[in-house]
């Protein structure tokens, strides 16, 4: 059983991830950006903040695909992959929240009062609600997982919850911005931002590689954790 999937041994995608991230950081911090009122230089945070959310959604999608594969094949490796891709997705979500809070502190918040005072107003924004809900749902996923001692039952039930949560959650995240008012860029139902209209072409040539780079980094972290788990398993039942 615990054979590591072949793509995890490959080097090319890890190296290209590093190159893309190096390009993101250098071009992101030094490259030209449009001077927009209020945003000014903070717009560079786009390469980090928005990429975290894109990465999170991609990693959660991988996690749910692995959950479906687990239910079809009942192979423990898919369960491990589902768990750890969700874990890294949550890490990205938390980082996305942190970078977003930093950004909001310099743009949306009233500079005359402490940021903590304006946080409750800012957090009511539909995109932040959606982000908070998805993080809570996946925290609940981890709680559910850890509450079941039996390995097979744990894998099966958490896969079912993962699929159920994902299918309810993602339409909701796309719906909520349509019915609630928002300050956040990307109106009319887009949960993050409208890449075609919201940012200039000069920024897009950094933004797209940044998304791919951060996602590859996330996949790398997840595969390392999966491989450690598989090794642990091998150690205990050789």
């Amino acid at each position, binding site marked *: 059983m615990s054979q590591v999937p072949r793509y995890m041994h490959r080097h090319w995608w890890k190296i290209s991830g590093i190159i893309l991230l190096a390009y993101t950081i250098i071009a992101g911090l030094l490259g030209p950006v449009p001077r927009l009122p209020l945003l000014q230089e903070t717009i560079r945070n786009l390469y980090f903040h928005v990429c975290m959310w894109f990465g999170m959604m991609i990693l959660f999608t991988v996690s749910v695909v692995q959950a479906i594969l687990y239910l079809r094949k009942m192979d423990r490796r898919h369960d491990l992959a589902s768990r750890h891709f969700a874990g890294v997705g949550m890490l990205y979500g938390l980082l996305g929240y942190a970078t977003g809070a930093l950004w909001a502190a310099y743009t949306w918040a009233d500079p005359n009062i402490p940021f903590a005072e304006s946080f409750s107003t800012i957090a009511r924004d539909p995109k932040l609600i959606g982000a908070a809900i998805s993080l809570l749902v996946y925290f*609940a996923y981890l*709680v559910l997982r850890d509450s079941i001692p039996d390995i097979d039952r744990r894998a099966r039930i958490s896969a079912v*919850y993962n*699929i159920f949560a994902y*299918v*309810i959650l993602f339409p909701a995240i796309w719906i909520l911005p349509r019915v609630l008012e928002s300050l956040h860029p990307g109106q009319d139902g887009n949960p993050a931002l409208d890449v075609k209209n919201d940012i200039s072409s000069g920024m897009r040539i950094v933004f797209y590689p940044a998304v791919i780079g951060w996602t590859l980094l996330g996949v790398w972290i997840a595969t390392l954790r999966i491989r450690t788990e598989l090794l642990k398993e091998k150690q205990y039942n050789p």
Partner: protein
Amino acid sequence: MSELLRKVNIQQAMQAIWTLFKKDLLLEIRQQYSFYGILLYALSTLFVLYLSMDAPEPRVWNGLFWMIQLFICTNAVAKGFLQESRGRWLYYYTLAHPITIVLAKLLFNTILMGFMSLISLILFRLFLGAPFLDPIRFFGIVLLGGISLSLVFSFLAAIAAKAQQNAAILAILGFPLILPQLILLQQISTTQFSGNTDFDLIPVALLIGLDALVVILSTILFPFIWKE
């Protein structure tokens, strides 16, 4: 899986759902303590609210109403799957198709929750006043809300039961997941507090769509968890 996906005779399935539904109803009638328990829960929560504030403004009323609905729902629906013992599951396994079991439970829970919604609406009207203008229409919204809540919580109760957990995990699993529906419901019901008569159908359609999604997901996913 293949044996589960074999052609299901619709008429037989309907009959099985009806029988299972009747069984749940009969159990509820024979063991009335749980029904009265939920009723008492609603009444005493509301009475605490009534004593701690008088005549809340519409926004607060709305928030309180849906929060109470949420708590009533977790209590009312949790029992459905959690009451089934391991032995009884084995018995069902020999008798019925999982899809009929889950559909019967969903049906029973929606009716139970619809009834509870009506009662809590009446209690709210009596104790905390009524900011809504059209009682019939608002009752429709409340009914729709009760159905949405009970569908999501029914399936989560199945998960909680199969994880051999108590009702506490139901709240942990359910509260984040129900938030989108709750936000939509609050949006719909706040439109009923102001004088404007036009009624936005989009959130209602979205809610019904989400409900349909939950039913479809439950029928697809339940066969995977019901077997030990």
